[in-house]
């Protein structure tokens, strides 16, 4: 008899709640058996803002996906984003203990523990410790076991979060009587499914521009070397248009989708666009104004280029902005990656090649939409667990730690 469990991948985004149901058979195969995507409420800039409202919309989305799959969720993998996420690169060091200077399991364990022992303030908790290559007497090495050397070092990119923000997300899932098995930050989840192994090896930056946040993950030499969250997304573009053009957010959203472009070009000065296109509207309302396209594209250009400038600055500060080491360029995903001209904006600001991801090739076409990439990444981790060397999700003992940390009911 084959053994199966149903995993619910849940992303509580700023504008959308995405739920995917995956059936994992014998811990080997994964079938996506249900999905739902619906508008999100009570979430701003990636963080639950109104627990009651957010819970209602998430619960509805989960139930819809379950109905769609005609199955019940056994465990939940949850995505997390928000500007409260932060990370640091820590190096653990140990002297090789054996008399023959041969690296043992114990030495590796010691080096790893040394890297992870950095204490956090009381209101923060680690979400991920992502292992980077070892170095043995200064030589980079993937697996140092049984190799000869004196000093063993290992780097970790460690991601931590504000406990209260994570616990708010957990409460939403607990409210429907489901247990969260794992929390994975959105950027890592998206990156896992959108890049080929060869791209991770050559270096690539995945940028997931959502409604309220932009999450990015940088791969170099097959390892995750940095993740980050810029608390700016498509909602900001809409808000800027709404303020700048003095129109309602609904109309601004429409403008963004129909006429928006991520960069301004001089030809925009001559072009005008209509807000409603309906000339029957009374001339005493603001319903039928005509707007210069230049106004729209200038507002969007300022905002979108700022997002990439912040990412560039953060990579520079970490001494990781070396275009040669990001040979595969930038892969864009998330709802706002659908904005016209976004690749050009990346090229101008970051000086890197860019492409908008058309989704993982091994899933059904309707799931290749950029809004699904984070949830697909969650399922990927549900299937592969910690066996994946490069991405190294948090081991289970760590999850139990989270569960304890946030267990206040």
């Amino acid at each position, binding site marked *: 008899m084959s053994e199966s469990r149903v995993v619910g991948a849940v992303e509580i985004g700023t504008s959308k709640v995405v739920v995917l149901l995956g059936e994992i058979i014998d811990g080997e195969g994964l079938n996506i058996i249900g999905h739902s995507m619906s508008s999100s409420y*009570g979430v*701003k*800039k990636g963080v*639950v*803002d*109104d*627990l*009651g409202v957010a819970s209602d919309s998430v619960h509805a989305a989960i139930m819809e996906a379950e109905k769609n799959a005609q199955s019940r969720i056994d465990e939940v993998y949850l995505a997390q984003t928000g*500007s409260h996420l932060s990370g640091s690169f820590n190096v653990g060091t140990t002297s090789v203990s054996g008399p023959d200077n041969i690296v043992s399991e114990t030495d590796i364990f010691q080096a790893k523990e040394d890297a992870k022992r950095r204490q956090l303030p009381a*209101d923060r908790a680690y979400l991920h410790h992502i292992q980077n290559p070892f170095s043995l007497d200064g030589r980079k090495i993937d697996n140092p076991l049984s190799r000869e050397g004196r000093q063993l070092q290992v780097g970790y990119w460690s991601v931590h979060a*504000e406990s*209260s923000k994570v616990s*708010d997300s957990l409460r939403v899932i607990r409210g429907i009587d489901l247990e969260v098995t794992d929390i994975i930050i959105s950027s890592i989840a998206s990156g896992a499914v959108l890049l080929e192994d060869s791209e991770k090896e050559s270096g690539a930056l995945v940028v997931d521009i959502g409604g309220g946040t932009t999450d990015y993950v940088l791969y170099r030499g097959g390892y995750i070397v940095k993740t980050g969250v*810029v*608390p*700016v997304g498509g*909602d*900001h573009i*809409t*808000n*800027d248009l*709404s*303020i*700048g*053009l*003095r129109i309602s*957010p609904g109309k601004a959203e429409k403008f963004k989708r129909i006429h928006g472009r991520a960069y301004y070009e001089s030809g925009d000065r001559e072009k*005008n666009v209509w807000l409603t296109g309906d000339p029957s509207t009374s*001339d*005493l309302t*603001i319903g039928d104004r*005509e*707007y*210069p396209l*230049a*106004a729209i594209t*200038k*507002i969007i250009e*300022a*905002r979108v280029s*700022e997002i990439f400038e*912040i990412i560039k600055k953060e990579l520079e500060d970490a001494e990781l902005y070396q275009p040669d080491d990001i040979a595969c360029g930038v892969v864009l995903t998330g709802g706002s990656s659908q904005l016209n001209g976004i690749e050009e904006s990346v090229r101008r600001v970051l000086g890197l090649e860019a492409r908008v991801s058309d989704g993982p090739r091994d899933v059904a076409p309707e799931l290749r939409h950029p809004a699904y990439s984070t949830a697909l990444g969650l399922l990927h981790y549900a299937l592969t667990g910690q066996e994946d060397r490069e991405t190294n999700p948090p081991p289970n003992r760590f999850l139990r730690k989270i569960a304890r940390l946030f267990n*206040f009911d």
Partner: protein
Amino acid sequence: MNNPNDSLALEHNATEPLKIKIIGVGGAGTNALNNLELNPLCGVGQVQVAAINTDAKALSESRIPEKLVIGRSVTRGLGAGGELEIGKKAAEDDREAIAGLVGEMDLIILVVGLGGGTGSAAASVVAEVAARTEALVLAFATLPFSFEGKRRKDIAEAGIGELRQLVHGLIPLPNDVLLQEGEEDSTVLNAFAVADRWIGCGINSICAMLLKTGLINQDISSLRSVFQDRGGRTIFATGFASGEDYVSAALDELLICPLLHMGDRPAQLDRILVNITGGTDLGIAKVNQVISLVSQRFNSREDIVFGAVIDESRSGMLEICVMGKAGIEARQPIRPAVPTAKTSVAPLGKLGLEAEIAQDDRPPQPVHRSKLRHGDASPEVEQEEFLFVEANAQRGYFEKTDSNFYNGEDLDVPTFMRRGIKIKIKT
């Protein structure tokens, strides 16, 4: 004008003339008044103009009739150099002289540029002195550009927080927003010119309405009815047009006035004052058109105080000026985001915050726990929450969320505004 009410008003004015004083505080406030063209028809002589500054040289170059240099003992007449403490000391030292200048007025209009040393500090002292008199006190305050830095912004925020408690109506004019007006290739100076023009428009509307015989006259008591209470959010907007179909054009201008679009402005105002100034061709039908649209737009629950002034030199043009106060009643609190989290609602009455919180027609929000890290509901924490309110004005949809600072800039404020990129929205 055979309206009996008008003649009564005239009689009243004749026996006891209305005393109005416009006071510019600090360098920017004085400059704004230097450029002010008072409508010559609105009773020159009844409107006094005065300036207060620490910088004696700047003041001596001004053509404002009444001048007061403060803080000579502190600054030797050299200005406050952007230092808030110096401005504060200068104003405190000369409190008596300020009281003499403020005098006994019916209406005082303060004009100040916040962010510097003198204006930010002295304005609240002047307002405090004025608040002790019977006068109705209104204030126009410009706020610094984002690119002037966080320090000036913080000073301005603090200044506006103080002022708001002391005056009946405070009209903040953020330079970032003002820059959006005017021609596309204009510069930062343009924002100052726009500020001056709007302040002038507001002042002239008020004065003309009170002092000039018009189609519809209003007196000081109707102005008082709009600005009954101190504190609260004041809405101010203007629209001007000339040429063909100038009524609709002026209304369009009014509706896209950027001051009405700084984020989540209250859709509903309790009392509004609308003044229109036009030429002899401004008939009652056109006036009605303006009234109905304005009351519809602001969903005014109570009556509109309406004034219409005829200026023979202004045929074929129309200027509309709207001022109003947002409602100040609180409603039932909504469910907090984290039900069991330790939350604290600022004691509203004690701090006089009712108006601040209700300005957006939303109930008081619990203080986020991140702000309570250093102990429970200390006065500083509440004050901090309160000071955020003005900064929020430019954040629109994100008004209610935690601020989003990156390198001293609030990312929720539109990038184009922070960078001073001008957007031309008229085709």
